[in-house]
């Protein structure tokens, strides 16, 4: 992030609007923690879940932070290591769960995310006794997410809470800058071209995102991860 953007976000972090939204998020988290016994934070490694997890962790430092490993087919190893590194630096109780469905998917079609959630992730989380998920999605991101948040429709059987639902992209970056949080380096690379308002973390070289040009961007910026090492060989 360059100096000008850093200054912009620092100034925004002092605004009344930002302070109000952070206070609201904290209240949502406080209420949720009062009502549920064993919540967890869903941390993808992206900026929104980073802010959300940090807010929750400050109020409940022993909370479990769970990341779904999208497998080498959708997430280069370097990025997964970076996610783990961020969690380690912040001292979170972090756990990565693997998905066999995604590991088998050779990216020749749409990844079966609902299958992954319903067959692998949710049964595992229910077995572990989790009763609430903190999810870092925002209304601003898409109309589908807005409807999901406003309709209180949960993706799985585990109820969800969205503390940063009303945050804007400026709020998110202002929180990261003001708290001096480590974030994924890929944001700096992609944001130079896409802009800080548009840059998003998701799967890489994913055909599901072809309609948005995701593989085009990844081919240009993440070209060193275009090809995966053959099975049994050390990833390059």
């Amino acid at each position, binding site marked *: 992030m360059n100096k000008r953007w850093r200054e912009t976000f620092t100034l925004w972090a002092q605004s009344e609007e930002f302070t109000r939204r952070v206070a609201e998020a904290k209240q949502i988290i406080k209420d949720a923690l009062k009502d549920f016994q064993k919540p967890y934070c869903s941390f993808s490694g992206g900026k929104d879940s980073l802010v959300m997890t940090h807010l929750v962790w400050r109020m409940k430092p022993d909370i479990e932070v769970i990341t779904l490993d999208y497998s080498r087919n959708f997430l280069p190893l370097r990025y997964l290591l970076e996610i783990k590194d961020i969690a380690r630096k912040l001292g979170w109780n972090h756990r990565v769960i693997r998905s066999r469905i995604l590991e088998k998917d050779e990216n020749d079609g749409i990844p079966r995310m609902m299958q992954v959630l319903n067959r692998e992730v949710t049964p595992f989380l229910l077995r572990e006794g989790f009763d609430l998920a903190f999810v870092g999605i925002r209304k601003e991101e898409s109309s589908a997410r807005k409807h999901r948040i406003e309709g209180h429709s949960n993706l799985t059987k585990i109820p969800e809470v969205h503390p940063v639902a009303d945050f804007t992209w400026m709020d998110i970056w202002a929180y990261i800058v003001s708290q001096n949080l480590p974030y994924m380096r890929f944001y700096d690379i992609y944001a130079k*071209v896409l802009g800080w308002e548009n840059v998003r973390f998701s799967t890489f070289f994913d055909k599901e995102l072809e*309609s948005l*040009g995701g593989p*085009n961007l990844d*081919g*240009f910026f993440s070209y*060193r991860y*275009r*090809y995966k090492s053959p099975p049994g060989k050390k990833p390059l």
Partner: protein
Amino acid sequence: MNEEKEYLYFADKILNGVSERWGKKWNYEPLEVRIYLATPLVLNHPWVHLDGVLSHLALRKALGQDYYLLPAKYPISKITKGLELPNFPIRYAGAIPQASISFFENVKPRTEVVYKKLEDRWLGIVKKLYHGSGYFKDYAMKHIYIPTPLVKFYVVGDKEGLLEILSELVSLGDNSRLGWGYISRIEITPINEDKSIIHEGKAMRPIPVRFCKSWADSFLLAWRPPYWSTDMVEECVPPGSEVELLPETIEKMRL
């Protein structure tokens, strides 16, 4: 047509077509190819390979209209693998094509969104088509474009041969049907130094590590045409990375 017949048909057509045109002796020399563009260049990879462009043009010419009937079940590299194709206007140092990647005058990329949408209101059908997913899905694809007026390549090749084959090239890069990457003119000038594979200790193109003595960085890359085929992917030293070639590779580079 069964697979074997199909394979033989295309192999024969490629071999005859390419031999007819390229089966002659070339006068190789270090060259700088300058391609001036009329419109910005869209890419989904950070560079373009000149040898890939030439192979594509040669194949199109050899196959004619059959180019559009090529089998989709297996890559073209499966057909061309066993064929003894004649020399190209580009020299090969052993197996490595002596052609650098593209160098741009302006490397600052930008993005543009291209919308692909079926205008079903003109179809005269009553039933509403769903555009969210499936066959009629709408696209809002982001494309990376580079507003460069000039693309440079360094090759060891035959000037006349290259000019002849490049005269058929109308555009470079991706999505030229949308108007991107149109060529205004091409200049080829002889230079004193060979910069095709390595220059000032840095790789000018992907070089497989088996041809190198030492290298600073490596990852999986395609290093021979067709560059889109995974058959051509190997652990390579990327362009721009410091590299030292094996003595036998350097020997093969000598004219």
